[in-house]
């Protein structure tokens, strides 16, 4: 629980520090990308901090390249 709060706290403070200068300069596209990355980062960091077990993204690579891998590195 405290981990989640810590991540949210970090995310909010990063947004509070880095977003106002962008809005002041009217760099709206930069701000949108920043917010999107921050949201994704918050979700992923909460998953990491709370040790939620998810399937690894490596599984996608494994599924795609399995035939080549088995041909190159036969066991």
């Amino acid at each position, binding site marked *: 629980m405290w981990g989640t709060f810590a*991540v949210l706290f*970090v*995310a909010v403070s*990063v947004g509070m520090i*880095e977003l106002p200068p*962008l809005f002041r300069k009217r*760099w709206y*596209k*930069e701000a949108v*990308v*920043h917010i999107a*990355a*921050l949201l*994704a*980062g*918050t*979700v*992923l*960091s*909460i*998953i*990491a*901090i709370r*040790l939620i*077990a*998810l399937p*690894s*993204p*490596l599984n996608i*690579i*494994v599924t795609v*390249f399995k035939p*080549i*891998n088995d041909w*190159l*590195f036969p066991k």
Partner: protein
Amino acid sequence: MKRMLEKGRLSTKQLSVLVIFSVIGESLLVIPSSVAEEAKQDAWISGLIGMTAGLLIAWMIFRIGQTYGPKTLIEHNRALLGRWAGGTVSVLYLLYFLINISALIREIGDFITTQFLPETPLRAVHLIIVILIIWAVKSGLETLARAGEVFFPLFAVLLISMFVFLLPQFHSDRLQPMLGQGIPSILRGSLFIFAFPFCELIVLLMIFPYVAHNPKLQKDYMLAVLFGGLTICLLILISILVLGPNLSAYHSYASYAIAQKISIGHFVERLEALLAVNWIVSTYYKISLFYYGLILGSAQLFNLRDYRQLTVPTGMIVFGLAFIISPNIVYFNAKVSYWVIIDILFALLIPALLFFIGLTRRKKRLKRPASAEK
């Protein structure tokens, strides 16, 4: 209108130091084990073959970087393939950078929590590394390269002294029987040496535009790659000479195991921590280069006016992915061979394809009358 996102310029020397760091990179610790598993006592032959092929691909990456001129990989993709196709290729590259960064951070975390600090949570180690790379990339490319110059002498002295201290432990009979495993397994082993140190130099395509021009650039770059490659080969040879093929394959951190064997007159002992420091420094520079490529690349992909504001949010993504990327160290080590394939895909096949597309485009443009050029 041409915006320059990066204002710093690297000197030839700074580029060479970064190249040596990224060639040695994480391979310093983990590569002897993978190669020795495939090629056993012939791992050093694999090393030489892999290094020769690796020098070729490093040269190819350099030449491709020269044809891009002032454009980075991401900008070049857009100019060559247009907005959508170029964007797709660029997104693939950025994802490749992202997953590589996460894996490298995970490797540091796994190493420290299995060998050094078993009570420390993995995430604590990840957090420190992520803070460090955010700091480095936020300070800019030049700062990163200068810090590399500061670390380099220490790195070189520690590494060379480790090699020298191991001299009494060499057993040359461990290299027998030569070619006992057959040529195919030697070639299979050399793929690892081809991929991890050399193919991952593809990230330099994001940095070459910011290197100051110098007629000696190519020579110094190739020398740096050669030094890095020789270090890797020497390391594999030493780990076979000291541990023998079976133990080298058995220890997932073979270089750490050989550093533990250093004992000069029962006085100079327990030098493995120095090796670990060296390894963390070189891996850190490799991660920072990839992270720089990722941040600069995303800024160029979305046409942003600055890249610095992206560093902290992306750092949080990396922090999360470094944990998610593998449930445990066994899963991670079992998937090593897949990295070879994606490294070769992204460093050899896709750039070669882009190069030939570029050639056909240029021919078409030459055939057309000059008035159509406007």
